[in-house]
C-alpha cells in the first residue's frame, strides 16, 4: 500500500511520489472518480523535458479529454506502458498501478510548493477546484 501521507498534491489533482531524485506522477482517487472510465492515456516520451504546471500527458474518458500537468520540472525518465495498454488501471489503482510517468526532479524546492494530503483533502472538501 502507498502511504498517502508521503505523497504531495497539486490543485489540478495530480500526486507526486518522491523516490530519491525521481518523482512518480499520477492522478488522485478523487480525480479518477470525477473523470470515470478512463479509456485512453497519452504519455510523454522518455527524455523530454517538462516544466512545473506544464501539460505533460492526456487522459481521456468516454466523455472528454483531460490534461495532466507536471507537478515539478524535470526530464521524463520513465513512462508506464501498462497504463497505456490498460487505461482502466487509472480507475482501479490510481495511486499504484495507474501511475503515468516519472520525472528526474530538477529543483527540489518545487516539491515544497505542493500540498500535503491533509491540505489536499481540505482543498477538495471546500470545492475550490
Amino acid at each position, binding site marked *: 500500500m502507498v502511504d498517502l501521507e508521503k505523497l504531495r498534491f497539486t490543485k489540478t489533482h495530480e500526486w507526486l511520489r518522491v523516490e530519491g531524485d525521481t518523482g512518480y506522477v499520477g492522478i488522485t482517487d478523487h480525480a479518477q472518480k470525477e473523470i470515470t472510465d478512463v479509456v485512453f492515456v497519452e504519455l510523454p516520451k522518455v527524455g523530454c523535458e517538462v516544466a512545473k504546471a506544464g501539460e505533460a500527458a492526456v487522459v481521456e474518458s*468516454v466523455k472528454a*479529454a483531460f490534461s495532466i500537468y507536471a507537478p515539478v520540472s524535470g526530464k521524463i525518465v520513465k513512462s508506464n506502458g501498462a497504463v497505456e495498454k490498460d487505461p482502466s488501471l487509472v480507475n482501479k489503482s490510481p495511486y499504484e498501478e495507474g501511475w503515468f510517468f516519472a520525472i528526474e526532479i530538477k529543483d527540489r524546492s518545487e516539491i515544497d510548493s505542493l500540498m500535503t494530503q491533509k491540505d489536499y483533502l481540505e482543498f477538495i472538501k471546500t470545492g475550490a477546484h
Partner: protein
Amino acid sequence: MISTEDRKTPLYEAHKSLNAKIVSFHGWLLPIQYTSIIEEHNATRTRAGLFDISHLGKLEISGKDPKAFLQRLFTNNIEKALPGKIVYSPLCNENGGILDDVFIYNAGDRYILITNAATFEKDLAWIKKNCSLTLPSPQGGEGKGEGVVIKDINDAFGGIAIQGPASQQILSKLCEADLSRLKHRHFIETKVDGFYALLSRSGYTGEDGFEIFIPADASIKIWNDILEAGKGYGLIPAGLGARDTLRLEAGCPLYGVDTDETKTPLESGLERAVDFNKDFIGKKAMLEKKQRGLKEILAAFKMIDKAIPRTGYAIEKDGRKIGIVTSGTYSPTLKENIGFGYVSPDNSKAGDTFDVIIHGEKKKAVVVEAPFYRRTRLVRG
C-alpha cells in the same frame, strides 16, 4: 452548470435515490451516469438498459385534417405514417435548414409528435406560426387554423426507454399486450403496470427496445417496477453518457450537435427522410442546393491512429482544413475511436482518409459506412 432554472423530470427523485451523477442537459436535470458509462453501455448491448426520456418534447396535433397540415410542415411523407406507425422526419425552415428531427405517431384520430428537448419551444412556436399563416381561420386563436388543434402535452407525460436484447421479456411482465407482435417503429396505446402507456418498439441505441410515454405522476412507480422486473435479466439504469455512445455506434446523428439550422437534410445524410414528390416548407431551397451541389457532407469515420476525436476538432487533408468533427467517442463495443464530421464531398466516400487534429497532432482517420455497429437480428423460426 446546474442552475436553479433547470427543470426536473418526473423521474428526478428516482435518479437521486440511485445516486446518479446529475447534469444539466438543455435545461433539464438528467443523469449522465449511475455507475459507469461503459457498464451501462455494455448492459444495453448485451442485456438491457433503462433510460429516462421524459425530457423529449411531446405535442398532440388533432382537429380537422391534421395530415395535410403535417405534410406541409415535414419533409418526409406523412402518408407513410399509417395508423399505429411512426415516421421520422426533419422539420425545416424556408431555407431548408433543419429546425428539429421529429418522430410522428399516427394515433388514428390524432398525431403525436416527439421532438428533441432543446428544440421543443422553438418547434411549438414554428408549428403554431405556420398553422395560422397557411390555414387562416375566421375564429383565429393561437395555434388554431382551419380547425387544426395543437396541444402541448409535455408536462402530462413522463418517458422511459428500455433498450437491449432482454427488453421484450422484461416489459412483457408488466404489459398484457403481446409485444412480440409489435413491429419496429410501430406503437400501441396500452397499459403498462396498470397505467395508460403510449408504447412503441423504437429507440436511439441500435438495439431492440421500447419507448413508453406514461402519466407523469405514475412515472416513478413504473420506473421502479420495470427495474424490479428486470432484475433477473441484468437490467440496469443507464444515463445520457451511455445514450450518447450507443447512438453514435448506431450511426444516429444528434440534433444540435451533428445537425442544426445551418444544415439541410442533404448535408446531414437525412435525404432518405425527404420526399421531393410532395410540397413542404424548405423544398425549393433544398432543390436549388441539390442543383448547385453541396459544400459539405456529414461523414462517419474511424480513427486509424490511436486518439479520440471530439466535437470541434479540425479535419485536414494534406495540411488544408476540409472540415470539423461534430461528435466523437471511444466506442465501448468496437473498442475503436469513432466520430461524425462535416467534410468536403470529395473526401466523404467510404475509404477516403484524412487527418483529425487531436491535441495539436495530425491523427489519421478513414471514412466508413454508418452505422458503426449493427446488432445481429435473430431469424424468426
